[in-house]
């Protein structure tokens, strides 16, 4: 389960949350509705082009701007298997971990990968491989505490366990 394979879609630097899911659609939090507008203001045809299992690759500061969790939700619900970026904005990084959207930080992979590349991602090892050339990249590993949250399936499960154990 922790090995993903998918086609790459390329985005630039500073992709903000208004580009990921424009605020005009935030009068709902229905994930399916959000997915229909995923990345719309960065690329209006994206919601039609994207298929389940695809991978977003972007430059620096992906997800900057608002704290809307609707952004990683829209991406996840649109079927994107993971996001690889040179770097992530702080709140997006938190939100992605909290809701269980896999994200990987690798400047090298972000620089190398091109639109249409097929990549294989091993989430446990943080390994990213471009299939046609066999080029491998390693993502910055998550601190153990965050790995624990992800292993539990997100923050809510993590908190639920803590609360029921009465810690």
């Amino acid at each position, binding site marked *: 389960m922790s090995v993903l394979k998918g086609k790459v879609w390329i985005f630039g630097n500073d992709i903000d949350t208004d580009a990921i899911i424009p*605020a005009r659609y935030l009068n709902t939090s229905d994930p399916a509705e959000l997915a229909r507008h995923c990345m719309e203001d960065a690329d209006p045809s994206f919601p039609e082009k994207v298929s389940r299992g695809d991978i977003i690759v972007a430059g620096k500061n992906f997800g900057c*701007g608002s*704290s809307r969790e609707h952004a990683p939700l829209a991406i996840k619900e649109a079927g994107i298997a993971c996001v690889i970026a040179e770097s992530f904005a702080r709140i997006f990084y938190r939100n992605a971990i909290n809701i269980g959207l896999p994200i990987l930080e690798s400047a090298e992979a972000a620089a190398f990968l091109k639109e249409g590349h097929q990549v294989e991602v091993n989430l446990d090892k943080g390994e990213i491989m471009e299939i046609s050339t066999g080029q491998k990249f390693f993502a910055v590993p998550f601190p153990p505490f965050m790995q624990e949250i992800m292993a539990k399936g997100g*923050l809510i499960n993590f908190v639920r366990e803590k*609360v*029921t154990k009465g810690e």
Partner: protein
Amino acid sequence: MAHTMAEKILARAAGKKEVFPGELINARIDMALGNDITAPVAINEFRKIGIEKVFDRERIALIPDHFTPNKDIQSAEQVKLMRNFAREQGIVHYYEVGRMGIEHALLPELGLVLPGEVVVGADSHTCTYGALGAFATGVGSTDLAAVMATGELWFKVPPTIRVVFEGELPPWVSGKDLILYTIGQLGVDGARYAVLEFTGPAITALPMDARFSISNMAIEAGAKAGLIPPDAVTLRYLEDRAVRPYETVLGDEDAPVLQEFHWDVENMEPQVSAPFSPANAQPVSQVAGTEIDQVVIGSCTNGRIDDLRQAAALLKGRKVHPRVRLIVIPATQAVYLQALREGLLEIFAEAEAAVSTPTCGPCLGGHMGILAEGEVAVATTNRNFVGRMGHRGSRVYLAGPAVAAASAVAGVIAHPLELGEVKK
């Protein structure tokens, strides 16, 4: 060891003697916030935790401000969900239309966020409260759900970038200009994961309202918080407001910081950030003459009484340019009432501006002033990303209230001094 303000506040909230940048901590939360976009998601997540009651019904604020007064049925449903939760849980700080305001103007005004506290909000501009010396930061809805259940949240202790503004502010240069300048210098990710701390004589000289504008936009440089050390101005502001006793926390002068900048404001012009990034800041003269269709004065950045006073000073006895629509949105009901009593609303109406009840409205492209394809706006808001105020082919220039008001009159982006003398 010497520590920054952020480190000291976080250490206290984590019950530790000291903390260091990079350390992961669990902090006690003094106040948590959600709005009509983020709270519904948080409430659904809260239900999944399997706990009956929120950790403290006095330390959660739920503010319907983004799409209110409800702009459509879906928005009305979102607010209903929030309202029902607030009633069920006995949430003290839930405010309806007519009593509400834009969250980041309302919470300080009500004395709900205080120096030395740790505040989280499911809204990125929660960093506004840094102006009061609170460690305040934006989080997601799931984080908010966790806080509502436990009253705690994990943080990575951030390093601090210190910005010192030297000199005396020229006329019409204020908080908004200083923060646009800062973002222009640092870039939209220049302070990513770090705390911005603003000090220096030009900061100390600013009233609270201008300080809120500065801290508000720390996130636009990627910062986790935007702190201003509390001083006499801060304490005076809190005098009749603070709902709880609080303890001011100041940093040590010799605390190690990641970076330190000294900028002189003496020759600074009012700043404008061109589309499509708050980091495209430049002196107003660089973009002066750009034709505009709409001006918005409001938002959690510049919808406070001082902002409206600045705009009114320029609009008094003048008319909005025939080609331009000016929309003025006082940030809270109290600001609205104050502006009414001071005669500012009359000045706006006579200038042929539309004045709205408090709402986020056009700031996020929600309602109350959406731009069509190709339209250009000057706004005192905080983001000018593609599509932020409407069509993805529209453009927003960010500025302070003085430049916004002057531009509304001129019909093009203009320096307030271009209007000539201000009529008192």
